[in-house]
């Protein structure tokens, strides 16, 4: 390569080639093992680690969320049969809203598209499915597919501008579209007699059971399954490839682009997927209530749903579910309180929004961050320990050994520093090698013991006869060249030795 035969004034080439050559491993095929989702060896993320304090290895569960999920949902499932009709109904409503919110979280959180057309998609497909059932006699099992299809188409339409617009503007656009849907449905004369609501929709609940106990339980069961499906979709999209790509893009679009991620397409995919899921939910909604009304499109309801998501924690499925649980319980469960319950809801909203920065599910992390801050403030107070820790690694060091080692080192250095005197230096200048006084010996031993990075090397330049010497600092890392510390030339080796000695002393004093 021509750069070798080119003198560059300002720059001296030292150790220009790396020691080791990194070859690309061949036989990739061996490593290309595709594992279908959910077929991994461990269902729970166990992490084995070696505890430097107790000196034994321990297994700990990195991610405890699966347990919480099973606890919460299982609890609900077990509890419901013992509830009163009203609360069975509330539980079912909770499941439906939770499903909607989980999917919406997918759109807002994962895809980062701030769409307010969620309920519009639900409503439109609900209307479509209901109409198909009531007026075209579509059997109920086909309603959800129809809903999904309508959702898909609507989603495609909505997705078109989503790449051009961003943030609140897209929100406004979707809001407008939702409003247009509402009004245009409200203008359908055929529906006018029933306030443009479609009633008497078929359902998976036999009409004999409608609003009877068994019907309610069946309805709840259906809603519960719906919620599970929504969670499954969330899991599949959010933590598999698409989710990862989207997260990268969310963090830094420029980076994503440079790496070749087509995040617009990914977004688009997720959005359309989610929309058709919402469509299916819409059909279910119509089936569940056996009727569908314009209120689906109402802005208040939409905002309330959004509040649920935020209360729980935006971007997390557990957040969506938790927030929904709380708000639905208050809003529907305390209906006896009348308007007061709305005040309570608002109070909850305010308190959570003011205190928790990531919603309820983010509180843990927030608390840990807070504690870390306090910890480091305390560490800052006692400069002794950790005082020697570099900024990069200043976080809690698990291995206390290291800290004590450094502590000892610090004491030793302080002792040595005190022993440094001009005549000590003079002594070394006089006789770099050979027998030394005790203090100087201690000092030199200390230097010898130090780690590689702090050491210096001597470079001989010029022909052997009339050579001179320069001082280099070792990088201490394999393949990393030593660098020249300055451009002084030392005629004799001893002077070079002494220069190095001075440098070391310099460093010692500075440290």
């Amino acid at each position: 390569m021509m750069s070798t035969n080119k003198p560059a004034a300002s720059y001296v080439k030292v150790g220009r080639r790396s020691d080791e050559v990194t070859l690309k491993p061949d036989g990739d095929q061996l490593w290309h093992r595709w594992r279908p989702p959910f077929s991994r060896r461990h269902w729970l993320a166990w992490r084995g680690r070696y505890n430097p304090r107790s000196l034994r290895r321990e297994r700990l569960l990195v991610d405890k969320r699966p347990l919480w999920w099973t606890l919460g949902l299982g609890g609900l499932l077990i509890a419901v049969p013992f509830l009163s009709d009203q609360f069975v109904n509330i539980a079912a409503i909770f499941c439906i809203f939770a499903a909607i919110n989980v999917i919406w979280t997918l759109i807002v959180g994962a895809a980062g598209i701030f769409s307010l057309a969620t309920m519009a998609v639900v409503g439109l497909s609900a209307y479509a499915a209901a109409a198909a059932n009531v007026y075209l006699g579509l059997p109920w099992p086909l309603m959800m597919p129809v809903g999904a299809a309508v959702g898909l188409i609507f989603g495609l339409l909505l997705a078109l501008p989503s790449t051009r617009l961003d943030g609140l503007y897209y929100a406004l656009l979707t809001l407008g579209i939702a409003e247009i849907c509402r009004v245009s449905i409200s203008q359908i004369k055929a529906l006018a007699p029933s306030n443009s609501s479609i009633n008497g929709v078929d359902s998976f609940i036999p009409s004999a059971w409608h609003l009877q106990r068994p019907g309610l339980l069946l309805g709840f069961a259906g809603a519960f399954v719906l919620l599970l499906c929504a969670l499954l979709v969330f899991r599949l999209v959010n933590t598999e490839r698409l989710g990862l790509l989207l997260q990268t893009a969310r963090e830094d679009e420029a980076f994503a682009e440079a790496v070749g991620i087509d995040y617009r397409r990914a977004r688009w995919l997720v959005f359309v997927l989610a929309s058709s899921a919402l469509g299916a939910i819409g059909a279910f909604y119509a089936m569940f209530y056996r009727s569908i009304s314009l209120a689906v499109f109402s802005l208040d309801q939409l905002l309330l749903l959004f509040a649920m998501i935020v209360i729980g924690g935006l971007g997390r499925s557990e957040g969506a579910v938790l927030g929904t649980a709380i708000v639905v319980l208050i809003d529907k469960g305390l209906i006896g309180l009348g308007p007061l319950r709305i005040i309570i809801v608002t109070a909850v909203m305010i308190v959570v929004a003011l205190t928790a920065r990531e919603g309820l599910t983010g509180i843990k992390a927030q608390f840990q961050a807070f504690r870390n801050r306090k910890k480091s403030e305390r560490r800052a107070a006692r400069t002794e320990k950790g005082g020697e820790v570099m900024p990069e690694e200043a976080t809690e060091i698990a291995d206390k050994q290291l800290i004590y080692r450094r502590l000892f080192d610090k004491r030793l250095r302080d002792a040595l520093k005190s022993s440094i005197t001009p005549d000590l230096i003079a002594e070394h200048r006089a006789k770099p090698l050979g027998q030394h006084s005790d203090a100087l010996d201690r000092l030199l031993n200390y230097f010898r013991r130090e780690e590689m990075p702090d050491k210096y090397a001597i470079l001989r330049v010029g022909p052997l006869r009339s050579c001179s010497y320069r001082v280099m600092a070792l990088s201490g890392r394999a393949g990393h060249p030593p660098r020249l510390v300055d451009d002084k030339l030392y005629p004799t080796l001893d002077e070079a030795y002494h220069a190095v000695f001075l440098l070391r002393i310099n460093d010692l004093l500075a440290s």
Partner: protein
Amino acid sequence: MLPTGACFGCEGVMLSLGGRRILSDVSLHVKRGEVLGLIGPNGAGKTSLFEVLSGRYHPQQGSVFLDELRLDRLDIFRRARLGVARTYQSPVVPNALTIGQTLRAARKAYAPMMSAHDAEWAARLVRLDASWDRTAGSLDTFDRRKLLLACLMMRRPRVLLMDEPASGLINTEIAELDLLLRKFADEYHLAIILIEHRLELLGAIADRVYVLDLGAMIAEGAPEDVFRDDRVQAAYFGGVA
């Protein structure tokens, strides 16, 4: 069309943004295994030129070539998939992700998916030896740059565009960067285009240097000649070398 032997470049690029003429009739080309320097005073249009080459800005005139094919209408990620890798002036990384996740994202960015092995290889290649559990946001400038490089090298790009890779680095790090670039050029035969204000680095590794001023190429050639060129002196060093 590119001159023979060149594998990447642009012809007669004219770009104006917001009514301002940023680049006027800029052409450059680079061979495989060649390190090309691009210098110029601030605001000369270097980054803009990169944006054109990598596809963020689409020029009003002129076109960008990779070997035979014109890239004109392709977006950044499409060019990236064709093997045009670029880095940014500021060390961008997905702050919240861990290094492991970031590499995984890069692996799975598009078909063919790379194996975890490739990621390890790339990380090793660029000497990114921070723990893979650290979040990218907590890395220092150099490691951030390395992370992006690893993500790019994993795919064995054909061209590497680097915008001020040494800004904010210290000498040892610059030396290491130097090594990396040479390795890419020599062993993996990348064509590298390098915007740099640190002339020692540029002088050391660049085979040719283009000088851009007020959006126009004012000089081209081997570094030392170019640095001595009067117009360059005037434009870039302001008389003082």
